[in-house]
Each structure stands twice: as structure tokens, then as C-alpha cells.
């Protein structure tokens, strides 16, 4: 019997099954972590520092091997292919300071030896997307913090990844810049229909961006609870000041407080 299309639709893009991670120094960063990431969703991982959010992200990206459990890609033909379809945005912009914006965004394509002409067009499109089309010849140090982060996002999106992993990307930015980047990120997510996993320790940021917030507890890191944010997209300044937003933030805050109480003492 053939699997009904509805089941295919709802099978996760990537799934963590009972994933644990113990570092060589004996610290248990994650234990028994189960997480299904649905295609197309904007998932926020919310938790206190030290709850293993970043570790989970690195395991999904294949940058770190789980000590226990497995990462499954049910929809991808091969794991190798899926890994090449991941974009990663670090806490810091992490640009190559010795070369200009164009070459920084070009990097993922260059490493895959994509033909120069085709690659240049894709870099241009990626820079257009983040509003930096006229800065392609600038060097990273000539840009503001927010612009550097935009370059970093353009680089993560230039390969048009199925899955975009973001590790507290806006934590170091001022609030005005952060709000602007939040809005731009949502627009890009809707335009590209990619899946996003966004790690943050900000309740307000997680609720504003995500349609599902997974709250993690620490020591060891695990999923504590999750809540969905049903407000429709596009979300904007009106949503930020709406009662629905405030209510969701209250729920997320309460969940986070419980998770922190359950996490034990550092």
C-alpha cells in the first residue's frame, strides 16, 4: 500500500532521536533529546545559557557527533546531500576579514567549485535579498555590526539551503537593529520557504519570530516543553504590540521559568 501524501507532508525534515552529548571533560551537554523539525517551519529553541541549544544545532549541522542517539533525515535521499543543504549563521558574523563582501558570500559556492558566472549571479541575488547590493566591494571592517550580520545571512542563504540554522545571531546587536533584522529575516523566510531553527535566550524574540517555540532545560540539556505561536505571518510592529503577542510571551516566560527551576543549580 502506498503511503498517503499527507504522511509525507508531515514527516519531519530532520529528527533528533534520543540524542545525547557528553564532552571529553565529562560534561553532559545533552541527554535524551527528541526533536522533530517540520519542513517549512520557523522553530525557536529557547533556553537558559548552558542548556545545550548550540550543541544541538552543531549536531544537526554535522559539526559535532552525538555521543548517543541519532540524527535522521527522513526526506533526504542521502545524508551527505542534506548536509550540503544547510546554512549556518553563527553568534558572530564570522566573516573573512581579508576579503570583501562579495567573496565572503561567494565562499560556499567556491568551495563547491560552482562555475564563476553562475556563482556571481547567485551572490548578487543573495546580497539583494539582505539589502547590501551596493556593498559588494566593501571589506567587513568597513561595515556596521548589523550589516556584517546581514552579510553572514546572505552567505548562509546563497546556497538556497533547505535548513537554516541560526545560533543567537542577533544577541550582540542593539535593539533597533535587532528588530529590523527580525522583520527582514521573517520576510526572507517567507520568500524562500526554507526551514529555520533559531536558537535564542530571548523570550520576546522567540515568540515574535517562530511558529513553534521549544523550551529547553539545562544540566543535562533536553526538551522541557513546547508551545505554538499561532499568529499569522507577515508579522510586524502591530504584532509586537498586540495582546496576542503579550499572551504568548507570558506563556513562554512561564515555561522558561519552569524549565530553569527543573534544570537544577549550575
Amino acid at each position, binding site marked *: 500500500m502506498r503511503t498517503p501524501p499527507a504522511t509525507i507532508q508531515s514527516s519531519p525534515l530532520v529528527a533528533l532521536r534520543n540524542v545525547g552529548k557528553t564532552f571529553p571533560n565529562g560534561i553532559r551537554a545533552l541527554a535524551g533529546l527528541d526533536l522533530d523539525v517540520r519542513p517549512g517551519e520557523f522553530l525557536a529553541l529557547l533556553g537558559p545559557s548552558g542548556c545545550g541549544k548550540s550543541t544541538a544545532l*552543531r549536531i544537526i*549541522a*554535522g*559539526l559535532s557527533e552525538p555521543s548517543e542517539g541519532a540524527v535522521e533525515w527522513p526526506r533526504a535521499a542521502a545524508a551527505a546531500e542534506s*548536509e*550540503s543543504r*544547510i546554512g*549556518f549563521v*553563527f553568534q*558572530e558574523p*564570522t566573516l*573573512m*576579514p*581579508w*576579503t570583501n563582501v562579495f567573496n565572503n558570500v561567494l*565562499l*560556499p559556492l*567556491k*568551495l*563547491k567549485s560552482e562555475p564563476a558566472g553562475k556563482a556571481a549571479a547567485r551572490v548578487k541575488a543573495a546580497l539583494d535579498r539582505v539589502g547590501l547590493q551596493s556593498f559588494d566591494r566593501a*571589506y*567587513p*571592517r*568597513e561595515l556596521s555590526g548589523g550589516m556584517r550580520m546581514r552579510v553572514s545571512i546572505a552567505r548562509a542563504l546563497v*546556497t538556497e539551503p533547505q535548513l537554516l540554522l541560526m545560533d543567537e545571531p542577533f544577541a550582540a546587536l542593539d535593539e533597533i537593529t535587532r528588530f529590523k533584522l527580525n522583520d527582514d529575516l521573517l520576510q526572507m523566510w517567507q520568500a524562500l520557504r526554507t526551514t529555520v531553527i533559531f536558537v535564542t535566550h530571548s523570550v520576546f524574540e522567540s515568540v515574535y519570530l517562530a511558529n513553534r517555540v521549544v523550551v529547553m532545560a539545562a544540566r543535562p540539556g533536553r526538551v522541557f516543553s513546547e508551545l505554538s505561536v499561532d499568529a499569522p505571518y507577515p508579522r510586524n510592529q502591530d504584532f509586537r504590540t498586540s495582546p496576542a503577542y503579550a499572551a504568548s510571551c507570558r506563556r513562554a516566560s512561564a515555561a522558561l521559568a519552569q524549565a530553569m527551576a527543573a534544570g537544577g543549580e549550575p
Partner: protein
Amino acid sequence: MNARGSVGEHRERALRIALPVAVLALGLAVWELVVRSEGIPPYVLPAPDLVLRTLFADWTLLSHSLLVTLITTVEGFLLAAVGGIGLAVLFNQSRLVEYSLYPYAVILQVTPIVAVAPLLLIYLPQQAAVLACAWIVAFFPVLANTTLGLNSVDRNLADLFALHGASRGQVLWHLKLPSALPYMLGGLRIAGGLSLIGAVVAEIAAGSAGAGSGLAYRIAESGYRLNIPRMFAALLLLSLAGIVIFYLLSVISHLALRRWHESALDGEH
């Protein structure tokens, strides 16, 4: 405020040039005055004007010697650059090679070159021995600094390269070597001065053997002949050569790094 800042900057820059020049002029004047008033004979201490006159009078001889020493220095420097960077890359790519060879690089560095030079002169033809000395003294800072640079790669950038499946060659060429460039240039700047020192040490050591014609050989030879003004003139040329080498390498380093590295930025940015 901006105008005041730039005026202050101009004054600062003028002072940085004017003050050392004033110190030089003062020192030369005192030297000249003491030699003349005390009637010190030139074979004990020649006055500055005599040193300058000797420099012009002996220019044919001294310029030839300068050229010989400079060629040795440049050759030693180039070999040190290629050897230092090459070894650093090799060590970085293969731990086994690093473990096998690194101790000997350190031994070469810590053994005083003045003591090694006479031995080299026994086993190598003189020109090769002089070059070997210049290389031994100069390659280590390039090796040590480049190694440090290759190991100072931003961890997140390294992760990014891994995420996109970069090959070893791609990581080396697009990530490690550019990251190491500021360190490498720092090492080369030290190596420039050191290869001059290595060349001079070997020439002095070879001096008694007699076949050389570099500036240091000229100094040793003039010493035997009590031609003290020529010793000073040759010393002056050596010192100028060292300054020019250092300045040239600083300019190259600045040009290579000015758009991105902290060390090459003005206060403004």
C-alpha cells in the same frame, strides 16, 4: 574639533621626524667638536666629516662591497622566506614531519651563529657558507610566526569550511594561509634584519680567510690596517642598508594588510 584633531596629528607627525633628526644633529655636532678641540687622531676616533669624506673617497670600493653584502642578504632572506613558510605549511599538514624536524629547527636557532660560521666555512665554499649563515639566522622567525598564524584560525570559520565540505587544500589556501598572513609578514620583517646580521657574521668569520669582499669583510680588513675612518664609513652603510630593508618590508606589510588587519589601521577606524 575635527580641524583641531588634524592639526594635532600634523604636529605629532612633524615631531616624530624632527626630534630624532635633532638628536642626530646634536650628537654629530658634539662628536665633531670633541674630536677637534681635543685633537683626537683619526686612527683613534675620526670626526663625522672625515667619515663622510672617506665614504665619498672610497665609494667605488665600498659600493662594490655593499652590493656583495646586499645580494647575500637578499638571497638569504628569500631562502629564509621560502624555507620558513614552506616548513611551516609542511608542519601544519603533517604532525609526523613536525615532530621529526621541529626540534632541529629550534637547535639551529638557539646555537649562536657566530660559533657555527667558522665550521660552515670549513665545509662549504665561502659564498655558500655566507648564504647558509644568513639563512640559518633568518628562517626561524618566519617558521615560528607562520606556524603560529596557521594555528590561529577563527574556529567558527573553520566550522563553516567543514560545513561546506572544504578539502584540505581549500582550507589551507582559502582559510589558513590568509589567516596566517599578518603573522607571516611579521616574521619576514624580523627575518630581513636577521639575514643582514647572518651575512655580516659569516663575512667577519671568513674575514681572516681573506677571499671575501662584502662590507663586513671591509670592516675587518680596515681594522687590521688601522683605517678607522673606512671602518666607520662601512658601518654607516651597513646600518643604512638595515634601515632600508626594515622600512621596505614594513611598507610591503602595510600595503598587504591595510584594508583588513588591526595592525595596519589608523586611529580613525
